[in-house]
């Protein structure tokens, strides 16, 4: 009896590996998604996946694109490049998608682009790494703001606040490293001196040694570049050490979760973020306000969770793709061309103006600087 079950299980496994041979319905556009739904970067991948599912549903409910329904095939990369590669090949060769959204992180994106390029499938990444779109590859796009812009926004703010010397503290992963590179690279341009750069592990429970060291170096401000929950630990530690200089965070913590995790310690932290966090604070004249409100409402209705800026990357990616799909009749080359020609799309992240030279297409005003006060966001002008 037991053996029968085992044999059955083995059969199922084998069968599921066989090529699916059924003819695809002609009127469906299959688009792929690869997100870090679980694993270290699940805070990125989870909302992205949900948003993509929601958007596809919305588009289909509105009658699809040129009458074609969309079908989303989404795989979890777990933040692991090897798994992402596996997933991308599955999407390209098994599911035969016409375009791919994701992955969520820079390493996974860099790992998959080799395969999408070769297969000539347009890819819209949701990762921030600047390496993804510089140098420009014809088939690779991204919706997340580059670190370049985030750092620029931070430095702009610092310059205005008269901060000259900073200490930086970055998480030791791709995100932190990319941030560090930008922070170091752009500092001179803004007349800022980096007195010390330190790093911390994504799962570290304590960062006081680094902070104490930075404190001892006497900077005017500290920049922490990481994603939750590390920066919350940093914020808490900074408070314990009674560090009274401003603490700048990155857009990586741009979610209410950060305030929840860091508690009191979050107050006074300054960070660049997409406008999504501060939708209600935006001027009504801001073209993004309506888009963001719509997105937030829809998301909260469906998933009863708070919207984060990360879901917005997927939101924009789906919308960009939807726009490009129009009139493409499913031809990948056409989709690519259409994407490259997208102008003035106002999304959750910012206004996109894609060109053959710029596959991100965002301008620095995609970021606003916010400060956390009394456990909530306030806009800094």
């Amino acid at each position, binding site marked *: 009896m037991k053996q029968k079950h085992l044999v059955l299980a083995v059969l199922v496994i084998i069968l599921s590996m066989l090529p699916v041979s059924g003819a695809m319905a002609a009127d469906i556009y299959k688009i792929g998604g690869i997100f870090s739904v679980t694993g270290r970067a699940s805070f990125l991948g989870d909302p992205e996946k949900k948003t993509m599912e929601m958007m596809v549903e919305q588009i289909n409910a509105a009658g699809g694109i040129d009458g074609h329904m969309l079908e989303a095939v989404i795989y979890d990369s777990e933040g*692991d490049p090897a798994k992402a590669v596996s997933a991308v090949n599955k999407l390209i060769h098994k599911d035969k998608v016409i375009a791919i959204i994701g992955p969520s992180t820079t390493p996974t994106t*860099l*790992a998959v682009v080799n395969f999408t390029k070769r297969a000539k499938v347009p890819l819209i990444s949701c990762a921030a790494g600047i390496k993804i779109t510089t140098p420009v590859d014809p088939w690779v796009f991204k919706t997340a703001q580059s670190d370049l812009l985030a750092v620029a926004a931070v430095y702009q703010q610092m310059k205005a606040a008269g901060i000259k010397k900073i200490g930086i503290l970055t998480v030791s992963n791709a995100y932190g*490293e990319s941030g560090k590179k930008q922070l170091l690279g752009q500092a001179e341009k803004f007349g800022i001196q980096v007195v010390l750069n330190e790093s911390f592990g994504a799962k570290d429970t304590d960062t006081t040694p680094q902070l104490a060291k930075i404190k001892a170096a006497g900077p005017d401000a500290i920049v922490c570049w990481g994603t939750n929950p590390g920066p919350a630990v940093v914020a808490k530690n900074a408070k314990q050490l009674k560090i009274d200089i401003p603490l700048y965070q990155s857009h990586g913590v741009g979610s209410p979760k950060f305030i929840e995790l860091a508690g009191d310690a979050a107050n006074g932290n300054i960070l660049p973020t997409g406008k999504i966090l501060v939708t209600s604070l935006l001027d009504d004249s801001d073209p993004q306000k309506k888009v963001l409100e719509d997105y937030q409402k829809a998301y909260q209705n469906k998933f009863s969770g708070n919207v984060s800026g990360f879901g917005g990357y997927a939101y924009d990616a789906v919308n960009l793709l939807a726009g490009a799909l129009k009139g493409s009749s499913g031809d990948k080359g056409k989709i690519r061309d259409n994407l490259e020609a997208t102008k003035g799309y106002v999304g959750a992240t910012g206004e996109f103006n894609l060109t053959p030279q710029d596959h991100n297409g965002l301008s620095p005003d995609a970021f606003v600087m916010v400060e956390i006060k009394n456990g909530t966001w306030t806009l800094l002008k």
Partner: protein
Amino acid sequence: MMTDKKKYIWIEYLIFVCAVSAFGLVTENTYYLQIMTFIGINTILGLGLNMLMGYTGQVSLGHAAFYGIGAYTTAILSGTYGINPWLALVCAVAAAVLIAFIVGLPTLRLSGYYLAMGTLGFGMIVNIAIREWADVTGGASGFVGIPVLEAGSLVFMAGAGYYFLVWAIVFVAMIICRRLLASRTGRALRAIHDGEKAAVAIGINTHFLKLEIFMFSAALGAVAGFLYAHFVLFISPESFGFMFSIKIVTMVVIGGMASVWGALLGAAVLTLLPEVLHGFAEYEMIIFGLILMVVMIFMPQGLTRGIMDMIRTARRARA
């Protein structure tokens, strides 16, 4: 007796070669070829660790380090310095063997959990080194720009070409392992397997032997890393961390220790399982953990032995 056994092995090889070629020639879907390619790469890793664990009883929780060393050496040499990848392969293997020698010398004097801890620490150090030496390795963001493998006019890209390359190497690795086991070293290995004290008593320098096998498995790990790097063309430290070390150990144990086919089976199961479990989305981890536990609880000798036992009992039940 001996010739019989030899013949039997050749038949095994023949079946293996036929099956691999048939799959490669029939399957056109790159996805399946790619999965098979990963299985092949993991098999090479498993073969190396299997030799170490199965025959010398040494557990390495840092084997991903050699995988990483192989991958990064070739990436840096061929990507940054433009050296011919095949030459880089030689360097990668040499680097892995050298490091294995240096590390193994003191580490392999440890035993049991302390050895596990030692190897684990080594794996961690290598991983951190890769991440922190950003100028050379690309750091945590990963290394971009690994060239595609070429041999004359042949270009090994994802798909059938790479598939055959990897499995040819798997085949060679298998034969080398088998040869090694049949040799004097192999006999000594089996003696160690039966009891280290006994092996020492009959004059085997167990430490040197362990070191030898450690270096050998490091070399195989480096080859696997080389293949991985030139296949995915992008590498980042995350692929070579502690969890991957555990995964390799799991592959070996699940497949069955001290068995060449066990390495293959273990690699296949651990590579395929996540693919299959994708369908379970959020429940994937739970199911994966469960399968791991159940297999180990009911087939502690690994799947190779477990399945053979099952067939035997089934046959007996029918008889």
